[in-house]
């Protein structure tokens, strides 16, 4: 490779968190328990509005968003307006009040309210869920299901921590080092990436010219062709820098090898380092 390292940061110096908690939060267990009880959930009409209830409101205000004859809102759901949702707590059905949002007055009438109620999970529910879901097939009691939920959570957290630290160390090295990129090598990777992107678009009957900014962002994370070019440039630099770093750590002379030949240079040194230093509580 013609690209080379001017100065290389040491991954040992990267400021990363090494200690992680594995305690499964009660909130996570509760949300997972709902998978057992969901088929048995029922709807009730509450006396007073509580967080999580769904209300139908009539709103009158100078502000367009708060001037509607009928709107469904989940109280505490946070997707309508948190300020107004808070003012609904404790209200009764049919109650009318003067609320305020963003400094403007809003006349609010609570037309309807409903509450979804989940029953307490029992072993029958767990057994039914086990029959339908292979990954929980051995969990035929609530207790065994809960244990599996905790185990899955801990495995996921271990995996997240491992890959998170690996990624942070690599990012530290790549962003704190100084690289000399060869333009020809960059162009070669950029051309290949651009070609692959165009081929992919052709396969699904699309072209860059016809795509909206929204579509471009969805597919490429950039809303303009110029933005995509910049993104591809960054990726090409990242690819070369990674290859040079891994070559160095594996004792290979990158100047005598091509990018393709360097693809075999592994991250075992980094995996071992991370595994030795990660701590879980």
């Amino acid at each position: 490779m013609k690209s080379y390292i001017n100065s290389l940061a040491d991954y040992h110096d990267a400021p990363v968190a090494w200690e992680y908690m594995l305690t499964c939060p009660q909130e996570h267990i509760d949300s997972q328990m709902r998978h057992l009880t969901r088929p048995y959930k029922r709807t009730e009409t509450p006396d007073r509005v509580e967080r999580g209830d769904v209300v139908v409101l009539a709103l009158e205000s100078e502000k367009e968003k708060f001037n509607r004859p009928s709107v469904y809102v989940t109280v505490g759901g946070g997707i309508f307006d948190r300020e107004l949702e808070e003012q609904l707590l404790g209200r009764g059905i049919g109650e009318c009040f003067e609320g305020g949002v963003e400094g403007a007055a809003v006349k609010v009438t609570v037309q309807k309210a409903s509450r979804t109620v989940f029953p307490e999970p029992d072993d029958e529910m767990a057994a039914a869920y086990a029959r339908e879901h292979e990954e929980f097939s051995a969990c035929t009691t609530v207790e065994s299901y809960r244990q599996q939920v905790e185990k899955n959570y801990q495995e996921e957290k271990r995996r997240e921590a491992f890959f998170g630290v690996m990624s942070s160390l690599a990012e530290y090295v790549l962003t704190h080092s100084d690289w000399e990129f060869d333009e020809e090598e960059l162009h070669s990777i950029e051309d290949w990436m651009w070609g692959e992107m165009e081929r992919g678009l052709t396969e699904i009957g699309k072209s860059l010219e016809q795509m909206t900014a929204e579509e471009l962002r969805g597919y490429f994370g950039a809303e303009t062709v110029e933005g995509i070019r910049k993104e591809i440039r960054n990726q090409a630099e990242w690819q070369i820098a990674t290859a040079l770093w891994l070559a160095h750590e594996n004792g290979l002379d990158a100047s005598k090898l091509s990018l393709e030949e360097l693809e075999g240079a592994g991250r075992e040194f980094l995996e071992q380092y991370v595994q030795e230093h990660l701590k879980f509580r």
Partner: protein
Amino acid sequence: MATIYATDENYKELVSEGVVLVDFFGKTCGPCKMLARVLEELEDEFPFLNIVKVDVDECPKTSEEFQIEGIPDLYYYKDGQVLFHEPGAVDGAYIRERLAKILY
């Protein structure tokens, strides 16, 4: 409205009115199962939301019409018009942001 499973025949009718979240999925696809859980939780919290699930193997015509290349694939409709399209398994917070814009 609870979650409804579409067919090639009733798809257009199901998305023709109101705000509808359409999930193109496959039975054996891992990321689809993750998204399914996210959608179940959203349905618990926002039961007035319309969720339509399209099994790509059971609905080949609709999947072809939408040129579904990868799953899961999420479409946001309002009164029959696609407002957003999100390929891949997105998280609940992201879907909420989208819904806030569409619903209100």
